[in-house]
């Protein structure tokens, strides 16, 4: 069934969008990522104009994250205190990110920067997580299945001032590292047009030392607000949020997120991380491939008038 999208001004198959929303929703619920880094390139591929895809995707992530976070709240796997600290950092960061984005846009080549950002960050995070998870799995196999908690390491992070107790995460650390993580993710999220979960999740695990079970819910909690902020920004400045496209994506997305959350709970943390790592690496590989291999069409069309 073809549906004409009023803002994107293209006609697309409704079931295709529902299916895409569902698949990305499952991943979102399982890993605590918004799924934007997967969905946005997929939307480009089916012919949605990039500006509309990025803005609408933000709106869809609000829905799937909200659905996911409710499931996590019931399970008490959301650290609201940590989420709030990260969120404050995130909002500061996205404000900065938009300034950076607009500056680069005036210089030109913003598209290339976004692509390079994707390749570099996805590649780095993906391979780090992959190696680490493999090691963890080997270790747990040797120890006869019993996982040894190794997060009580003390490093420089624990010597900073303004310490705060994060009960749900079982942490007593300074608020500075989570704030900085929030800012960093916010900047990247604004430039790359995604929620930033795929950077946030590893940062929470490896930099802050939070337990994996809490990380997913907390990340989703933070993503809701950052993407809601982005949606409003796009809707009021660029008029590029397509509500019909968003509804189609989010119907699939919210159902997928519920299923994903249930799958995620049943899986071991290491397995979850290795799957996320593989997925991140796959997207990174595809983007790198596009940059390195000669495209079949060297020319592309853009709306004229603005340089």
């Amino acid at each position, binding site marked *: 069934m073809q549906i004409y999208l*009023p803002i994107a001004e293209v006609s697309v198959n409704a079931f295709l969008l529902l299916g895409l929303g569902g698949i990305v929703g499952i991943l979102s619920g399982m890993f605590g990522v918004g799924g934007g880094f997967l969905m946005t390139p997929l939307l480009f591929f089916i012919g949605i104009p990039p500006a509309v895809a990025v803005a609408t995707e933000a709106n869809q992530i609000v829905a799937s994250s909200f659905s996911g976070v409710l499931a996590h709240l019931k399970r008490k796997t959301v650290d609201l205190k940590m989420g709030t600290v990260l969120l404050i950092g995130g909002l500061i960061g996205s404000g900065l990110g938009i300034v950076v984005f607009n500056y680069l846009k005036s210089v030109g080549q913003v598209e290339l920067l976004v692509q390079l950002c994707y390749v570099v960050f996805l590649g780095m995070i993906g391979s780090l997580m992959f190696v680490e998870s493999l090691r963890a799995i080997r270790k747990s196999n040797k120890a006869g299945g019993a996982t040894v908690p190794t997060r009580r390491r003390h490093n420089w992070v624990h010597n900073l001032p303004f310490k705060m107790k994060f009960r749900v995460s079982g942490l007593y650390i300074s608020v500075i590292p989570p704030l900085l993580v929030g800012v960093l993710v916010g900047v990247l999220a604004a430039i790359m047009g995604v929620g930033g979960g795929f950077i946030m999740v590893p940062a929470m695990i490896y930099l802050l030392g939070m337990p994996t079970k809490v990380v997913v819910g907390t990340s989703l909690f933070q993503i809701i607000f950052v993407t809601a902020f982005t949606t409003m920004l796009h809707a009021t400045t660029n008029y590029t*949020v397509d509500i019909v496209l968003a*509804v189609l994506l*989010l119907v699939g997305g*919210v159902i997928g997120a519920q299923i994903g959350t249930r799958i995620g709970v049943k899986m071991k943390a290491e397995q979850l991380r290795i799957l996320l790592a593989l997925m991140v690496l796959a997207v990174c590989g595809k983007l790198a491939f596009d940059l390195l291999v000669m495209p079949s069409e060297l020319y592309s069309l853009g709306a004229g008038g603005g340089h």
Partner: protein
Amino acid sequence: MLRLFALFLILALPAKAEEIVLGLSRDEVAITATFEGSEILVFGAVKREAPIADDSTLGVIVTVAGPDKPVTVRRKDRRLGIWVNTDAVEVDAAPSFYAVATSASMEDVLRDIEDLRYRITIPRAIRSVGAEVGDSSSYTEALMRIRADQDLYQMLEGEVDLEQETLFRTAITLPANLTEGDYQAQIFLTRGGEVIDEFRTAIPVKKVGLERWLYNLAHEQAFLYGLMSLAIAIAAGWGASAAFSLLRR
């Protein structure tokens, strides 16, 4: 009243030897939520007062053009091993949609000089004045190639049925990825490649119903529209969560 006046005006003018009388299957195109493209039937007759004196061939050309818009055409090139956009050419005005149908092959029905004057063929319909890069023609060629792949530019040589040099008809297919605006339908009558009569009419292409309402809301009440999008997102998220917890019980 106005139309009647116009009719009198036309009748008062000295009659041309051959004139176009035109009909369209629809005089506007409505874009609804389930819009899948549309077909416009252009038909008509050649009206003449005296029998055909000329023995050169009669040609009919039908064009349908979307609104003109500037387009930036970018070219990728290899820099440091990766493919990046390097050069760009600004095309001043290119129709968002353009179809041209003829009753015979283009060179038989239209001379180059006439094409230049009336801007009939696809390359002539694109205006590119301030092209700063040397080989700007390769950019306009790319523009035409990409748009043709999307069925936005259509060259329909010999697609106009012309019967006994009097009745003509053709069908123009509008694809689903249309943009809004006033589309111009033009019909040219040629003898030996020279245009002897032309007729033009506008076909408005408009979003209607829900599409119209959402589009207006997004542009005129952007803040409200943004809030509405968020409310729908939150409601859908909550709804799915509630539905699933009911299912589990």
